[in-house]
């Protein structure tokens, strides 16, 4: 954290001081109920309400949407979201629940919607009053995202939508969905268009939301069926047929390679006292020091020590890569490191969690719902949940295609 502070602009320095002061006085404290590991798994309405009140407070304090213009509900600042994120993490705050809206909905709406729609949508998105979800994946359109079958048919000033979306995180709470769908069957890529569609207000009027159960036993994502949903043309983003271009804005931000920095808080340990952070190799080292295997500390096993050190190295490399991205003299290709970011961080989390299970040995067989589970069973849960992130947002195999094609100039798969 501290290496960022050294070269703050005057605006960032002033903002940082105010953020720090506010956070010191306004941390929401421990939640009154057990929260899931991340916003993607929130399914309990009480958890939603508690997290939403935190997001509203952070937004009102100017820590969310800082770099968006004030006309659309933003803070009108320059490069301050990074500072807000750093300070929120340092203050060990809860995560922001409107994660799809902040990370993907907001930049897509901001760069492609009509001005009055931005003003209608963005303030309530930033505050968390309205939750957003993303309608990209379909049963037949996963890695081959452009193979969209959901269809929007023009009807005067309206569009009529029919189709089926899957893996729709937070749809059960969502007011709005960013929707990629087909408006022409004549052209795979140029036949796509992009809309914002109502979910909550349209349930029973062309929208059905059904929960899907994850391998962890948690809910949090859904399938969404459209059966003649009618929306006005003003909900369309960019031109008819420009859906793929708009989707690229969404995906660039989803992969941490977009123009806008996503507001993000976090850092609060999930279980008071356990101090487990499944993102931190120091937690692995601590686990290994405390874990006895056949009477010996796991931390004394040479093979495990080597694997733990590799995680420290990868974790530090990830941090330093991000730092180097911001030094133009030291990067060879502007997109080379940003496009790696999603793949690297998700695989690191997956591999750290998997290593934790081997450090725990037989203890790793216990579910997070068993009180005897070491580290409250968080590593096993985290390991399963990491497959959500190595698959979502374009599988990591697709990320490798993109890197090979855009950065190394290799022949395209599609």
């Amino acid at each position, binding site marked *: 954290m*501290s*290496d*960022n*502070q*050294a*070269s703050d602009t005057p605006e960032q320095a002033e903002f940082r001081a105010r953020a720090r002061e506010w956070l010191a006085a306004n941390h929401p404290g421990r939640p009154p109920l057990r929260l899931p590991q991340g916003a993607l798994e929130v399914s309990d309405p009480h958890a939603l309400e508690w997290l939403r009140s935190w997001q509203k407070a952070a937004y009102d304090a100017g820590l969310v949407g800082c770099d968006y213009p004030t006309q659309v509900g933003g803070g009108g600042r320059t490069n301050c979201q990074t500072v807000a994120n750093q300070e929120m993490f340092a203050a060990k705050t809860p995560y922001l629940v409107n994660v799809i809206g902040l990370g993907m909905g907001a930049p897509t709406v901001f760069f492609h919607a009509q001005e009055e729609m931005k003003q209608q949508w963005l303030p309530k998105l930033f505050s968390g009053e309205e939750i957003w979800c993303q309608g990209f994946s379909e049963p037949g359109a996963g890695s081959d995202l452009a193979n969209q079958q959901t269809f929007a048919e023009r009807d005067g000033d309206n569009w009529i939508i029919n189709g089926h979306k899957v893996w729709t995180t937070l749809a059960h709470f969502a007011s709005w969905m960013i929707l990629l769908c087909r408006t022409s069957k004549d052209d795979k890529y140029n036949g796509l268009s992009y809309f914002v569609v109502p979910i909550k207000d349209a349930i029973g009027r062309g929208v059905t939301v059904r929960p899907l159960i994850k391998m962890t036993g948690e809910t949090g994502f859904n399938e969404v069926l459209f059966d003649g949903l009618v929306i006005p043309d003003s909900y369309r983003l960019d031109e008819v047929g420009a859906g793929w271009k708009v989707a690229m804005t969404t995906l660039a931000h989803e992969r941490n390679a977009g123009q806008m920095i996503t507001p993000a808080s976090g850092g609060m340990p999930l279980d008071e006292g356990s101090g487990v952070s499944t993102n931190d*190799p120091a937690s692995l*080292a601590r686990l*290994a*020091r405390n874990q006895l295997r056949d009477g010996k*500390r796991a*931390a*004394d096993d*040479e093979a495990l*020590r*080597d694997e*733990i*050190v*590799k995680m*420290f*190295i*990868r974790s*530090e*490399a*990830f941090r*330093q*890569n991000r*730092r*180097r991205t*911001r*030094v133009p*003299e*030291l990067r*060879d290709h502007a997109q*080379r*490191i940003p496009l*790696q970011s999603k*793949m*690297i961080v998700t695989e690191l989390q997956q591999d750290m969690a998997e290593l934790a299970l081997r450090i725990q040995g037989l203890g790793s067989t216990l579910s997070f719902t068993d009180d005897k589970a070491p580290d409250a069973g968080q590593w096993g849960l985290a390991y399963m949940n990491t497959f959500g992130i190595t698959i979502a947002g374009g599988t990591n*195999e697709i990320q*490798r*295609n993109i*890197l*090979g*094609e855009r*950065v*190394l*100039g*290799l*022949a*395209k*798969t599609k």
Partner: protein
Amino acid sequence: MEQPKNFGFGEDEAMLRDSARRFFSDNLPADRLHALVAAEFDPHRANQCKWDADLWKQVTELGWTAACVPEAEGGIGMPLVAAVALAEEAGRAGFPSPMLGTFNATFVLRGCDTDAARAALGAIAEGTSMTLAVTNSRGSLNAGDTDVQVDDSGRLTGSAHFVQDARKADRYLISARGANGVGLYIVERDADGLTVAPDVIVDVTRDQAILGFDNVSALEVAPPGAGQTALEAALPAMLCVLSADMVGAGEWLLQTTAEYARTRVQFDRPIGFFQAIKHPLVNLMVEIDNAKSLTYNAACAVDIGAEDQLTLARMAKAQASSMAVYSGSRAVQFHGGIGFTWECWVQMFFKRQLHSQVLLGDANHHRRQLADALIGPVAA
């Protein structure tokens, strides 16, 4: 202690790096390197020392070896990140030279607070090259281990092993044990009583030798007892420039193999279309970027005198070493049959990477040291 956001890599460092990159692309493209070091294909003659001494002279005249010599000694006084950038470019070119040795000697001499050391730094600034002769016959990585003894009148007897670029360097910086501990000494390459016995090595871009000392008169730059500290203090910087060399060579292997994958056609497609080629090349790119970022981070830590500089430098070397092997193996494999030939330029960089990965300790060695620092020592 806070590191500057930009690794301390400013306009001056970028200009120096860019000029180095131009210098090598003008003077030492891979075909010229191959003609220089690999025209002979008899492996039993690989102990020949093939290099372009005139090119090295130009490098010293450009002031690269003076970069990290303090201004007070007639150098330029640039930060370590500048030397790291130069080493990266040298690695990218597979440059046969005593450059790393001269940098290493510079780092060690800067930690010896003697007039003789300052004078030796002045000589480096004026273009004298050096290399370290601090390794014993068992290849020990402990700075105190040496097979050279120094007597009371400052004369050396014994042997130093695995001396890098021994036939290119003008002078040697030698660790020798006396009655009061290890000291550091300088001997000229043509000194009386010194023999240079070349090893036959696999790497065609370097040379390596055993130095034999028979009552050789030497210049003391660190008295007995002070040598080990000076060597240990210089280790983080030495790990950084060596890692940077591997980063540069790794990038050459990546770009050369990507170019091949863009143009080589099989099954009616450029082979880079196939994910069996595409994905490992992306993985290699990731490994290179990790090594590069860790290297600049460690160098910056050295520049600001950070306490964790050795930890960060070991991370860089561990990552660079494992990347180095991977870069060579994927480059040969993806070039197919041609990649397995002496004629293909890839072999020069493949071998340089294998050589570099074990110098100053391989990835396992550094990870073992890191485990003690990051996890804590193994319980008795």
